[in-house]
């Protein structure tokens, strides 16, 4: 099937994101198809997390431009409604919620995603599988959500949530940072499985390391609020070798062009 006849699972068009009156994301357009893995790479402070949070519907941001999920506009929906329709955000800094067990949280999340309660037995089975893939002990079910978790444990739990919720489209914000090599492998395995079962993935990162394990379909270079260049996996390698500086002129041109 050619992509021309398909609808992207996710797209945004000329997206601008403002914090107070400051423009952080300055016109971003992306198209991601079901089962594709894209990487969005850019230096610190370029606005990647802002883009991700705004796409998920964070109320602190003002957003201009269209966002489509499965071909439907979702730009006016609150975060929970986007989640129910199949959008997922893996947080760069997952938030602790003391007193709430991983199991009760995830069961509520999955029930919300499905629009009906999940039978206990089925839920258990799903969790067992996911814990196995991510090489985490089942005792995590009873622990309080992200409370006292190490950085690596938090990131694994984000991937675990993605596997359970089976989103149409997953935004993963630096899920690779702070992971040792074993954790990186299991996290990559989780991402590859999700893409294998038709989830579209946008992996936000500033290292090319994880791309050795997940083989992206496309790489976008993101600088100062804009995608300044898009290409195939070879672009990531080039960034690894040369850093971001060589793209400065392109970033400047993009900025100029926008004016």
């Amino acid at each position, binding site marked *: 099937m050619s992509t021309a006849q398909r609808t992207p699972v996710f797209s945004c068009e000329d997206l601008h994101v403002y914090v107070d009156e400051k423009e952080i994301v300055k016109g971003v357009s992306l198209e991601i198809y079901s089962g594709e893995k894209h990487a969005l790479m850019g230096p610190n402070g370029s606005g990647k997390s802002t883009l991700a949070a705004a796409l998920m519907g964070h*109320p602190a941001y003002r957003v201009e431009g269209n966002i489509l999920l499965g071909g439907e506009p979702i730009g006016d929906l*609150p*975060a*929970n409604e986007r989640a129910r329709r199949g959008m997922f955000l893996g947080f760069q800094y997952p938030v602790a919620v003391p*007193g709430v067990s991983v199991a009760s*949280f995830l069961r*509520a999340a999955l029930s*919300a*995603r499905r629009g009906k309660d999940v039978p206990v037995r089925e839920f258990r089975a799903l969790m067992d599988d996911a814990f196995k893939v991510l090489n985490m002990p089942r005792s995590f079910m009873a622990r309080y959500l992200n409370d006292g978790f190490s950085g690596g444990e938090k990131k694994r739990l984000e991937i675990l949530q993605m596997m359970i919720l089976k989103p149409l489209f997953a935004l993963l914000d630096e899920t690779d940072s702070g992971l040792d090599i074993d954790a990186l492998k299991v996290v990559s395995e989780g991402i590859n499985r999700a893409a294998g079962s038709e989830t579209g993935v946008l992996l936000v990162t500033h290292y090319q390391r994880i791309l050795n394990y997940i083989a992206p379909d496309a790489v976008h270079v993101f600088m100062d609020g804009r995608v300044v260049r898009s290409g195939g996996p070879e672009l990531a390698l080039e960034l690894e070798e040369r850093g971001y500086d060589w793209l400065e002129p392109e970033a400047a041109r993009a900025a100029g062009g926008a004016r």
Partner: protein
Amino acid sequence: MTSKERAIADVNTDYLEKYGFHDPEEYLLRTPKGLSHEVVEMISRYKKEPGWMREIRHGALDIFLAKPMPTWIDPSMLAELRFDELYYYMKPLGKLTRDWDEVPERIKKTFDRLGVPEAERKFLAGVSAQYESEVVYHSFRADLEKQGVIFLDIDSGLKQYPEIIKKFFGSVVPAADNKFAALNTAVWSGGSFVYVPPGTKVEIPLQAYFRINSKNMGQFERTLIIADEGAFVHYIEGCTAPVYSSDSLHSGVIELIAMKGAHIRYSTIQNWSTNVFNLVTQRAKAYENAIVEWVDGNLGSKVTMKYPAVILAGEGAHGEVLSIAFAGNGQHQDAGAKMIHLAPNTTSRIISKSISKGQGRSSYRGLVKMTPGATGCKSHVECDALLIGAEARSDTYPTMEIAENDVSVEHEARVSKLADEQLFYLQSRGLSEDQARLMIVNGFIEPFVKELPMEYAVELNRLIELEMEDSVG
């Protein structure tokens, strides 16, 4: 309704449905409005009490009249409390019975609606149900009775075991302790009397249920629990009242005595309607190696002032207070704990959690005291406040009086706002804002809830859910 009244009525809208109903006021005897020696005399004579108890009552009334209102709180909190407008004793129809079928129909329906008999069938060893001033239903498992455990309404206790009552009544909370302890001592009626013989462990909880039905009613139960050497007992109390526009007063006194090596756990879930002044004195004395735990949940009421205390009188005794308070619009929860270390190597732990929502206000007021000679003592205090909404308020007033060097005292206080980032995280997983908020609050009180028997944990979570459903003011 004034806007303030509306705000108050708004606090617990579902309260009305579940607990806020009231029966017509029917009674056998009601003392005249207001408080006087005549009223005290009437109560005591009606109950056919021994002369010494009558004297204690009259003496306490004099103390009450002489004592000023508490000075440690904002006087405006109690300004609307009109002692002259209240009825101090009201005897409901019917007589005390062990047979549920004999409880007057209307009262039975009330407790049915509140789920009391059901709870008894399911998991309690004994139940006492008090309506207005008197216990109307009381049951207790025969096997425990055979083992010598006493569980009675306190009026019956006074008739059957006057020597024990005389010895311990007021020994932990003397009438002169505070104005409301004096008031209770003067007009007390109902409450429980529990005695557990040496070495006996009552593994299943005993429960008392308090219900105020009438307007302008004062309820003054008096509970005395004695666990003899090495004994164990868990006592649970629950309270409700209908919603009226005029105020009621609940002012109980609870005295616990844990002898050498004994263990008492006293759990309370109070969910008063928002026109009740809830001013309770709860205090325990723990002898050598005894353990006393207060597990105290305060919801509803207009004003609650409550500081469960443990006097650690014997070496190695341990005291614990685990409490939560929920203050919604128009409510003030002034709660805390006191630990008085009189003996060496005594330990205490206070964990106090409060939630203030809308214009609700909660305060932690605590005292840890270590007297000279109380060496090797340890105390750990943790106060955790959660604020929901910009107008919610929380204050902490910890007092430490430490007269020994060889001790360890830790105090941690945290105030957190229900964080937007927590909300967003949960919402990004599909939970609605209300669901997310409720989940965060339930997580916050989880350390408290897990100390409760399952049935109570479920009930408390449900009550919190009702509180959270009301729009943030």
